[in-house]
């Protein structure tokens, strides 16, 4: 494993994507610490506020002061020469670090509580886009991890077993997989969402959707894994193990699984973006995460108002950028992993 990591870090693309992903996940983990405001705090006096400029002023970090030019737009302009002090590790609103440790310190906070400080602007009700982005990353980034855990576990179980045992088990498992592949997933999601919506609150709904997505998404992985385990089953070391009287579970665990691990790793990395994009698409359609929770897809769906394009409130599209960066990073990492893993597969 450490070997793999070293190989990945030797490649520039590998290290770049790894660093990006680690930063993103750290951000999600420490959301409360990084955010500048509570996720749902509104400020109806400062809706659609542009990102506030952060500068070095008077020997310290400071934020530019803006004034309203047109209430109805709304439009703001910087007040020349007026700045407010910002402090690192300063006290702010209450939160729980990692959900456990009650804290007040934040990465960056204005010295006065009434300072308007929006690192990435504000949305239609004056909520901080940056803070929502950071909190929203929790949903958008974990949805992939939960999804592939279920997908890969089921795929490995069904694919590995049916490849190993073959015969009737293989036949029925594969027909079941084909059945699942034939289910039109979008319609199933729409139907399940509307049936289940009244029974779950919006944050439970999120978990429900991931589970639905992955329960119908494991079929593809199962097919590939079945093929691989079928071929590994015929190799001499497996036959040797069988001759020596090792049970099927032992063989699966000690001989077949290690040979599938490299594929699993690559496939998992490459399929995480699918879940992130899936969440974005569902939330965009109004079927995913609902207010007042925050996710990147939800934030993007709230930016589809024509006013936002016509008045050039570009900062409301930053969730799209975040999705883009995450998806690219996962794809690059997957590619690098495959490059690293593939030659080893050949040598065996």
């Amino acid at each position, binding site marked *: 494993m450490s070997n793999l990591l070293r190989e990945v870090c030797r490649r520039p693309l590998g290290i770049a994507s790894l660093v990006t992903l680690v930063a993103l996940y750290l951000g999600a983990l420490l959301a409360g610490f990084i955010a500048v405001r509570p996720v749902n*705090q509104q400020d109806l006096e400062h809706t659609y506020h542009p990102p506030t400029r952060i500068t070095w002023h008077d020997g310290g970090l400071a934020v530019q002061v803006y004034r309203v030019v047109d209430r109805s737009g709304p439009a703001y302009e910087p007040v020349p020469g007026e700045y407010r002090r910002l402090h690192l590790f300063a006290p702010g609103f209450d939160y729980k670090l990692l959900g456990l440790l009650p804290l007040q310190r934040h990465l960056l906070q204005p010295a006065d509580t009434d300072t308007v400080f929006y690192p990435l602007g504000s949305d239609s009700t004056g909520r901080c886009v940056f803070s929502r982005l950071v909190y929203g990353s929790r949903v958008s980034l974990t949805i992939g991890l939960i999804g592939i855990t279920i997908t890969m576990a089921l795929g490995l179980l069904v694919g590995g077993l049916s490849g190993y045992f073959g015969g009737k088990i293989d036949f029925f498992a594969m027909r079941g997989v084909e059945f699942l592949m034939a289910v039109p997933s979008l319609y199933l999601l729409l139907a399940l969402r509307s049936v289940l919506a009244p029974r779950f609150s919006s944050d439970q709904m999120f978990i429900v959707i991931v589970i639905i997505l992955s329960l119908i998404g494991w079929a593809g992985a199962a097919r590939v894994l079945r093929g691989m385990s079928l071929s590994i089953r015929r190799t001499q070391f497996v036959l040797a193990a069988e001759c020596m009287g090792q049970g099927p579970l032992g063989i699966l665990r000690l001989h077949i699984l290690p040979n599938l691990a490299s594929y699993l790793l690559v496939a998992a990395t490459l399929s995480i973006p699918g879940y992130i994009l899936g969440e974005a698409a569902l939330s965009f359609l*109004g079927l995913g995460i609902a207010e007042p929770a925050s996710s990147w897809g939800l934030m993007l769906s709230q930016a589809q108002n024509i*006013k936002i394009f016509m008045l050039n409130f570009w900062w409301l599209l930053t969730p799209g950028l975040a999705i883009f960066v995450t998806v690219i990073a996962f794809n690059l990492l997957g590619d690098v992993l495959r490059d690293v893993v593939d030659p080893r597969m050949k040598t065996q």
Partner: protein
Amino acid sequence: MSRPIPNRHHLLAPLLACALLAGCGRPPPPPVEVTVAPIPVDAEVIEQPSGKPGAMLVETEPGDIATVNPLIAEDQSSSGVISRFIEGLVTLHPDTGEIIPNLAKSWEISEDGLQYTFHLRRGVCWSDGHPFTADDVVFTWRDAFYTKELDPQTGQPAIDPETGAPKLRYPSRPAYIQLIEGQEVKVEKLDDLTVRFTLPQLYAPFLLFGGGEEILPAHVLGPAAKDGTLLDQWSINTAINHPEQLVGTGPFLLESYRPGERMVFRRNPNYWRVDRDGHRLPYIERIVTSIVGDSAASNIAFARGLTDIEGIQPDNVTWISRAADKFDFTIHDLGPSTSTSFVWFNLRPGNDPDGKPFIAPHKLAWFQDVRFRQAVSYGVNREGIVQGVFGGRASPLHGYVSAKNAKWLNLDVRRYPFDPAKARALLAEAGFKTRADGRLVDAAGNPVEFSLMTNNNSNLRTEMATVFAENMAALGIRVELQFIDFNTLIRRTSESFNYEASLLGLGGGAPDPYASKDILMSNGRLHMWNPQQAKPATEWEARIDELMREIGREFDETKRKAAFAEVQAIMAEQQPLVFLVTGNEYVGIRNRWQNVQPTKLGGITWNLDALWAELN
């Protein structure tokens, strides 16, 4: 932007099949011969300066029409098209809101208030040149509205087993509206130009609601009323294949229609209004109406200079006005609109068919407590919604009537300025407590939380709901937001009653308070918080019922106003609807159009027949 057409084809397929089958047995409708009649003796002369005829007006309509038959039209798009060619005897003054002559030039009301005699304009003709007479009025009321369904076996009028009343042959919305407490109005023709309506009992808004009823052409629809196909007439199919069949007295006639694409209107050559120089109106030769997907697409088309005239959402005014110089248009601010927005709680007691209560009993107890509703009202930051969501282009709403309807507005009602401290005090008085973690709990310890739904295709409503949820969070109340499809929402609020709270709006803003009876009276279909009650659930609802009945009976304007003022005061005190804000109304029109005189009530299209533009 084009609409997805396939769906509509599915809808149309059976219609077309019917038409084809019918076509085998019955000849196609006879061609309509159009003769241009002389200008009516009683033609109305407009006050505005004369203009030049011949211009073409281009506009967009969000949403397609469902029918062109006034008897079955329910949606706004269809009614809008129909009102271009079908008119009533009276109409409303665009400035004062008074009832003024339209197809009738004058009327008399008998002393007992039961007989209305209308004198029709002499010489008015339908668009095909056939004279418009009292027969048309009698036909509309007697043959289209009040004809009874005959029992095929006995030949006697069939009886509706549920109500015990005779079944109508053409059950339609206007027919039911024109039954006064279930009784018919007697309509008689005194001579060709005089009609008398005799009411079964006192009914104050008859002049407006009865007189404003759209009159149908007897010479075109008469045969259909006899052979029982009246409700099948003037369908989408007619509009597509035989638009010339759509005969009316209004200024514009439908010339062609392509579903999902566009409608073209042509000027009525037999219209009954003339300008000062004696030329027949309207000046506009054709109106081309493109059908677009939604109001956003419609607003964009105007902002890009593609259309001449457009109603603009308050939050779109700023960016659209930036193109005003480039495309040479003006946006008129018509002040507060008649549309309102409000939150209400489901107050329906009892159980659904599965035996489960519509809402959990402890929640129903909160919602039924007037102090809870008042506290919610104090907790809503209306000024913040006006500034933040509408960018200042709205005003806080304190009662049932919007500021636009100044005639009926009662300003002296209890108001709920944003005051979280007062809200907390009221909640404490009602037995609610605040837990250590800031959450509000009731006397039994249940945390106060409810779900609030609104339709997902209106960004203003979803943003208002977001603000509302945050305002409630400040009081320790958790609000779960559900943004759902509009039709699903209406089903849940009016059929299954499976919801806790909802945020919606009402449009229209009726000129007479009695039009609100379906909303305000406890047996009303649109009595949102607890519709169609067998008998009023609360004393204040009973009092509102009583006042509304008085408004229906009473002729004296001051008494009616006093009664409606009391209704508004009760609504404000009880807060069954927690009113939020009313947006301002904006219309844009290209500057090439002359005679544009926007009024608060009539908007910009009240004198569409007098608008003109230079030909280029």
